[in-house]
């Protein structure tokens, strides 16, 4: 069964799409960046937990395989359509009122920097119902609070079906907090993304 009509409409209306992923999300994220079309007509932001690596392996691997133009966020980058941004390691990524990113090196949140909560909350403040957020596999609670803020501000929020995630804790936390509009399996997520 395909995604329901309401979900489809909200997805198509979204201008900013945020993906949060942690442990166990690599495979699905890799497929996402490979499958998303070059001209999606949206701004895509990836917040992925990772060790502050010095060699930017994920960034390189992703940008070599993505169809959409991909860029690691630098301070004061302007959010553009048809661009996929990846939050840099060892910084929090915030979104400013004027439609640009700012970075922050303050304390980790949920032991994580980048923290998904920080970016989600900031997106909720600035873009509210123009956002869609998808929270994927992970082993901690980061992202749940931020996704709730997004949902409260009218954004479309989707948690990966925990039973379908390599690490269920992260999407489950969001679901338990009442932050998810929809709970979708990987296949359902892909049907939506490519609809």
């Amino acid at each position, binding site marked *: 069964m395909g995604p329901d009509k309401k979900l489809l409409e909200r997805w198509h209306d979204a201008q900013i799409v945020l993906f949060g992923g942690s442990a166990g999300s690599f495979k699905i994220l890799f497929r996402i960046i490979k499958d998303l079309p070059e001209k999606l007509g949206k701004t895509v932001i990836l917040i992925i937990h990772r060790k502050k690596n010095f060699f930017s392996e994920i960034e390189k691997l992703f940008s070599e395989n993505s169809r959409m133009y991909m860029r690691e966020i630098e301070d004061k980058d302007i959010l553009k359509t048809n661009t996929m941004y990846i939050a840099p390691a060892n910084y929090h990524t915030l979104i400013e009122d004027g439609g640009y990113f700012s970075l*922050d090196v303050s304390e980790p*949140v949920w032991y994580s920097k980048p923290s998904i909560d920080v970016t989600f909350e900031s997106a909720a403040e600035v873009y509210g119902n123009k956002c869609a957020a998808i929270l994927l596999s992970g082993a901690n609670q980061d992202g749940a609070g931020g996704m709730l803020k997004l949902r409260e501000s009218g954004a479309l929020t989707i948690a990966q079906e925990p039973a379908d995630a390599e690490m269920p804790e992260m999407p489950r936390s969001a679901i338990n907090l009442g932050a998810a509009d929809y709970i979708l399996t990987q296949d359902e997520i892909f049907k939506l993304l490519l609809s």
Partner: protein
Amino acid sequence: MDTAQGIISNAQVQELIDIVRKVHGFDFSGYTKASLKRRLTRIMLLNKFEFYDLKHVLINDSDFFQGFLEEITVNVTEMFRDPSFYKAVNAQVVPYLSTYQHVKIWSAGCSTGEEVYSMAILLNEAGLGKKSFIYGTDINTEVLREARKGIYSLRNIKSYAENYQYTGLKGSITDHFTILYDAASIHNELKQNTLFSVHNLISDTVFNEFQMISCRNVFIYFETFLQERILDLFYKSLCPLGYLCLGSKETIRSDSFKSKFKVINQKENIYQKVGT
């Protein structure tokens, strides 16, 4: 957790900025708002303050302000953060510095001093220790007090061991410290060539001439118009062909300054002053 946002409105943030400027003389109007708001929210949560409580103490309790200043500015720092940056300095800037009789370096926004001592270690290993002097400045007197001490928790220092290793410097980071129980104190020979002092990038001016200025992960908190003002200060504070190092995600965006600073290392954002 400090994840809550939106407790205060943008108008209230503006009100606090005005109070801090009028009462304490610090101008935060050029700071990026999302981060500032997050810090203010955090201060309110830590103190269990409503907006009006915060307003009240900012106006009436002068002792509160020092702690406020410490919380509002981000003082998270590491030794040898971004090891590839230190590698690049070693390869591309040190040869230039070594041509000088005396080397003066300014670490702007030095917080608790970790970067100053990282640079001191690097220069010492390069054989420039005796002839170089590093000035560390910050707006915050409390963090400077910590910086001057040069004493860190052993646990923290050990957490920088991996960074140190990636810089390619010989030995290990603890070689540069005297360890006593759970404290690590930076060696005196490294400390004696440093000076820590208050300097406000927003309101203070040129105070010396430097061969190198390092200002890393400070611009991320500033709007671009303020970055430009400070770039001008740096330009004036550098000797001809002096080097400017920004954070690895901070670039010079303004066209007028792009022509005044030549890119030496694009990835690490190391620039060289050109023209006069």
